[in-house]
């Protein structure tokens, strides 16, 4: 297992929203999804994840409902609201632009003008 990368501030919300854009999930499903997708390279603190979903629930970006898992256990499921979907779209695009810009700057060779 490679050493996990600490999460850059502000990206967790985006990642959770992205996970939920596929389908409604409960908290553990979200962590599993992130671990799968990142190949275990992202270090997501479980408590931080729950804080994030609850915070986003309060902001109306996700909505929670109790449901039953495949194994007949009660779990709290989260799904995207319309506001959450819009947030994902705009913040996602911003993140990509930001990352590209930073990448462009720090990968440029000496003397080369920034793109």
């Amino acid at each position, binding site marked *: 297992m490679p050493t996990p990368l600490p999460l850059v501030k502000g990206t967790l919300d985006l990642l959770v929203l992205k996970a939920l854009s596929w*389908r409604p999930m409960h908290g553990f*499903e979200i962590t599993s999804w992130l671990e799968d997708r990142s190949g275990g390279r992202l270090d997501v603190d*479980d408590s931080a994840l*729950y804080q994030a979903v609850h*915070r986003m629930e*309060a902001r109306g970006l996700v909505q929670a*409902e*109790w449901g039953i898992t495949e194994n007949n256990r009660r779990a709290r*499921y989260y799904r995207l609201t319309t506001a959450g979907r819009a947030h994902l779209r705009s913040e996602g695009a911003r993140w990509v632009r930001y990352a590209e810009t930073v990448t462009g700057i720090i990968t440029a060779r000496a003397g080369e003008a920034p793109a």
Partner: protein
Amino acid sequence: MTERPFRRAFRLAPGGRRRLERELAEELAFHIEARIEQLVARGLAPDEARTEALRRFGSLPDARRQIRASAARTAHHVRAREGLGSLRRDLRHTLRSLRRSPGMVAVIVLTLAIGIGANAAVFGLVSAVLLRTPPYANPSRLVMLWQRLPEIGEGRFGASPPEYVDYRDRNRVFSELAGYINLDLDLTGEGTPERLQAARVTHTLFSTLGVKPFLGRAISAEEDRPGGAKVVVLSYGLWQRRFGGDANVLGRTLRLDEQPYTVVGVMPRGFQFPWQGTPVSDRAELWIPMAFTPAELQARAESYDVCMVARLARGVTLAQARQDISRIVREMRREHPDIYTGNLQTQATVEALVADASESARPLLLTLLGAVAFGLLIACANVANLLLTRGVARQHETAVRRALGASAGQVVRRALVEALVLAGSGAAAGLALAYGIVWIFRSLGPAQIPGLTQAHIDARVLAFTVFLALLTALFCGLAPALKSTRQDAQQALKQGGRQMGGGRERQRLRGALVVLEAASAMVLLVGAGLLIHSFIRVLLVPPGFAPHGVALVRTTFDRNRYPSDTTRRVAEHAIIERLAALPGVTAVGLTTHLPLADERRIGFRVQGGAPNEYHWAQNALVGDDYFRAMHIPLRRGRTFSAQDTPDAPATAVINETMARTYWANADPVGRVVIWGDRKLTIVVVGLYGVLSYSVAQRTSELGVRMALGAQPSTVSWLVVRSGLRLAGLGIGIGVVAAAGAGAAIARLLFGVVPLDPVTYVVAVAALISVSVLASYAPARRAGRLDPALALRAE
């Protein structure tokens, strides 16, 4: 856990803090356990897995604290959103379930509508007529002074000018007393000539009423003397209508009855006097000085035209005023024994002005108010009963919902929504009805009732009646729901569907309601019947002339424009000849007053009778061909002819009933009928609703009977019989009550005795028919029941 993991089973409304804590704990515990399972699956030992899971989670207390804060915020939003959503769901469910029982819904809505509508409307009418305040200063201190001639007949009269002067100068109880005479004046000159309602008033009138003119001044003492300047004060309405509200109207000259009058003042908007003149069109539009002539001031007891209004002096009561006025009458009679003899036994009375105006309409309106208030109570009782029955019938459904996890709050809320939907619909329909009723009365009501034209729906009354109806609906809709939440769901489920006849106590209550309704319906039917009967009798009284095909032309021959009788007669002849020459005209007659339409009363004495033995008669001065034009048959003697000139001996034609008693004016009767009819609907609808519903409630009992071998016809008969027994009891009670009520309205009746057998028979027959109908329809259904189905029904 991937495919279809999201299966909604419960809807949990976010509750208080405790629930929040519990749910948070549950969510986190689930996470930890899931993590442990995952790690164990990857090969860790359970102990290690637990340690690792907790490590990965991080600081549990910190997380909890933060999450808790967010969750509290969320809960707030969710509550609002979910509340709205489930309200919509409840509403949908309610509408669906109400659609399944359209009959009950119709009865409830109709009952509430009539109850609410009638109450709001009648209160609107009553408050317009009885409770309005006259536009005068301190109106409760104003009184009307009337003379009465008990030996000659009922009724109140004004005074003759000398009597007026006596009352004015001798009383010790009034701070001011004013006299007025109602009259019509022809306004000619500029613009269209018109005939206006006016009043000759003493200069004290406006100060007695405590009202100052809006423009200019009132009539002065100098102008209220014989030969004083001819001035006129206009009403605000006339000023607007005729002069466009021109402020320069003061000082202008009007021609009234061909005499020039100078405008000196305009009264404020909303001022009206006399207070009794009801319809706006009948109210005085201008006031001129009384200015009694010396001849008028000598003519004691020869006329009764001068009406009197006075203001009680400080500290004087109505009773003291009456005593003082009686003293003055005694003095007058002692001083003029030659005049106050025979049946001219003048008396006088003092009435409060506010009450006075609507004295005649008061009992009628109060009766009406009582009747509709009673009607609203019946309506509420009906609705209560139907909702209770429905709520009880739904206890089974409620129990099922409770067993499936619905909270008590949810059950109660649904009942609340249903009650609100029903009461709301009833209130809306009632509002429409109230507006309709008031509109009808304003446009068609008897003109004699003062203030009727100003009737409107009083917002407060409406709010009150709607509130009452809502309260009823809420109370009755909620009571069963609340009860069911306290009940053990299992027990309710076991009981449900095994209710025979809807419970003994409830049946007794419903029975009492049926009896009450039948009784009140009986009273109303008899009352309405007597009034309708009276109205028909009034219509059937032969007027003594043939009103068909008679055209009427009204005109005035003004004394000043036609100063001599000769010139007037020449003009009359010219008009008659020109009218008679028109094609299709068979006869043209002249009259000063029309029968039944105009009122002109004169006192007369019969030759050979006691001196000063006066009687009253309606009369008219008529021309040659009047009787032929009106198709009034001649019984004896002759009609007028060319020989009846002014110089010939005076002649008169009298009618057959002149010697008999003079029939009273029964005008209001016709209008009352409408009420009787409308009130009836409430009770009949209610009676039908309750009777048929109570039969429907016995479905399972009837099923048992039929399962045990009862014939369908036997079952039907059983149902009809029990319905009729209750209705019969009610009708019996109603007959007794109606007899009492009939005596109370005896004064309003004409040509019908209060115990008129025809009315009673018709009323009883009508109610029995309704009762039979109300129990027969469900009885037929009961007879066709499949016993097995009926047993399971509920």
